[in-house]
């Protein structure tokens, strides 16, 4: 693949406003707290240390990067315009897009949009590259399948109504200063 690298000047941020450096402390605090909470339960004779999957489901925070999905707008159409930026950004080249033309107001849409979930590494680069907020990392993490073909997700499988993705989109807007 012809790789042409253009250095883009990013706005510089002061060190103090960068991604919270104190996240390390928070992380340690979370682990420590869990340790003591579980220790307390153990001493009280309880067995409930983990979530009982699949009877119980964990509600993931919006920061979780689950499988990438396509945003489906209220009119049932995808938001994606097949610009190919996610395809280019994807480090594992697991996205395949073939664009096509329509007579809608947005004249371009993906005729084929496939993600090979067996290669996706949930890095979220596609989401960051997308200029249309059309591909986002969902909270869906149960993506195993019985065959290799089954791990190839097509456009119809990837479309998720925008109402279900609201938390992630709000999170993105606040987080990436869109």
């Amino acid at each position, binding site marked *: 693949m012809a790789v042409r690298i253009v250095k*883009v000047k990013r706005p510089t941020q002061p060190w103090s406003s960068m991604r919270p450096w104190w996240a390390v402390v928070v992380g340690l605090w979370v682990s420590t707290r869990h340790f003591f909470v579980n220790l307390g339960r153990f001493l009280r004779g309880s067995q409930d240390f983990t979530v009982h999957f699949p009877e119980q489901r964990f509600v993931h925070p919006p920061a979780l990067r689950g499988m990438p999905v396509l945003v489906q707008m209220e009119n049932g159409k995808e938001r994606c315009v097949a610009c190919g930026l996610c395809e280019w950004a994807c480090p594992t080249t697991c996205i395949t897009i073939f664009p096509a033309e329509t007579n809608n107001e947005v004249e371009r849409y993906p005729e084929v949009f496939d993600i090979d979930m067996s290669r996706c590494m949930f890095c979220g680069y596609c989401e960051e590259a997308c200029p*249309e907020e059309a591909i986002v990392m969902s909270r869906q993490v149960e993506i195993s399948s019985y065959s290799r073909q089954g791990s190839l997700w097509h456009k119809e499988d990837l479309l998720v109504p925008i109402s279900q993705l609201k938390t992630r989109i709000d999170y993105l807007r606040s987080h990436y200063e869109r």
Partner: protein
Amino acid sequence: MAAGAKLTDAPKLVHVTVDGTSIEAREGEPLLQALLNAGFDIPHYCYHPKLSIDGSCRLCQVKLEGIPKLQISCNTPVRDGLVVHVDDPEVHLARRGVEELLLLNHPLDCPICDKAGECWLQNYAMRFGSRFSRTRDPRRKRQKRIDIGERMLLDQERCILCRRCVRFCREISKTGELHIFNLGDRSVLDIYDQRLDNDYSMCTADICPVGALETKDFHHKIRVWFLEETASVCPSCSNGCNIMVCTYKNRIWRLVPRRNDAVNDTWMCDSGRLNYRFVMDPERLRTPRIAQQNGQVDTAWEVAVQEAAAQLNAFRARHGGKALGAVISPHLTNEENYRFGELIHALGVERCAMAVVRGKYDNFLIKPEKAANARGVRELGLVAGNDDGVDDLLAACEAGQIKGLYLCSEDIFHVIDPDRLNTILGSMELLIVHSLKQHPLLTGAAVIFPATTFAEKDGTFTNHAGRVQRIRRALQLPAGWLTEGEVFTRLLNQIEARQEQFDLSFIWQSMARNGTAFANVRFEEIDPDGAPLHNLA
């Protein structure tokens, strides 16, 4: 008038000081060109080296000492002692202002715009523009996706009114279809009484710095950043326009012209540009075929070569080499034709011909001979006569002097009346063919080799003016595939018990030793602009 036409025959070299360093430039040439030649990256939209000066984009402004205001460098002729400042706060401010004005009403269609990735507005806006929009008013609406020609689309919102396309249609294609209507903020590019249908219309999409003019052929096909470019030569006529073959996933997506001032400047014709689909044609032969009792069957390359060699040897033992005729291909490279010349010499063939399809031409780029390398065959001395020996060969076939034919291309099917050809081919004892496709006239062939196209091999073509130019492999061939040159070499090895390889530089040495016209040129000198075989002075 072209930008450099003002120059006298021997332009005087003068010195210009740019940001404190002195550069050499030709007197009278546009200062912008001199700066670009010296490696200063001056942004510009409307200036094009092959078009007249317009001065409409105002992006190329520089500071000239002694002149109070900034000047556009494209319309400043170079003179001795000019002192120029390009890295100057005033210049940077002017560039930022121009970018902001251009983006004021720009639709920012980048995600769906075919130009994105090679768009000068994108590139310069990222480099010189400010990152934020200060506009509050809604953007101006214009017509989009207007069908302005057989092969072209226009998006008026994206147009930055640089007038390159207008000047192209007036000065190069000389048809004048495009105009800018209205004034100031209401200016809009459009066609008026005729559609943009000239033979070079798709060049306007190349020179358009933004995605306002798009070709229908490439519309919404693929993003340009996926494309790999291979420098090559257009195979569609004997002009030999220099091109870039743009490929991705082992497919050609478009051909674009490559600048060569001695051949095609920066242009190419539409029919040449669109003539690439035959390479990916699903009906193309993919495996060689040999004749057996119950008709032709697919076979492996090595088997087909063995079969062809055996048939040729047997035929020669029966009738002698003189009874074999050869039709040489104007689509093969010089090296392949040279090797074929060695092969027919070894076989003792006396009658060779070359069939060239002729068609529409003009006095700009399009030439009548619709093949890239007819001149090369003639330069090698393989064919003679006004019709390249076709009549002589066919008459000998009809008279029964020739009983076997080796066809390097199927062009003869389009040149000679099919009924006549059918009778001739039907009477042949031996028929060996290189062909792109299966053809009804080929049912009697003993061996059919699939032909290899210009995009799948390395070599050189000689254009109508005797300029040798390099072509390069842009697509991968299936494993085991043999190009024509390799087939000829293997046949030669079998017939003369030689141990040759098909190696370009080796063939060039051999061509030079044997005193062909190609002795005047060294293989290494051909890149990137080609080399003339004969001194043109």
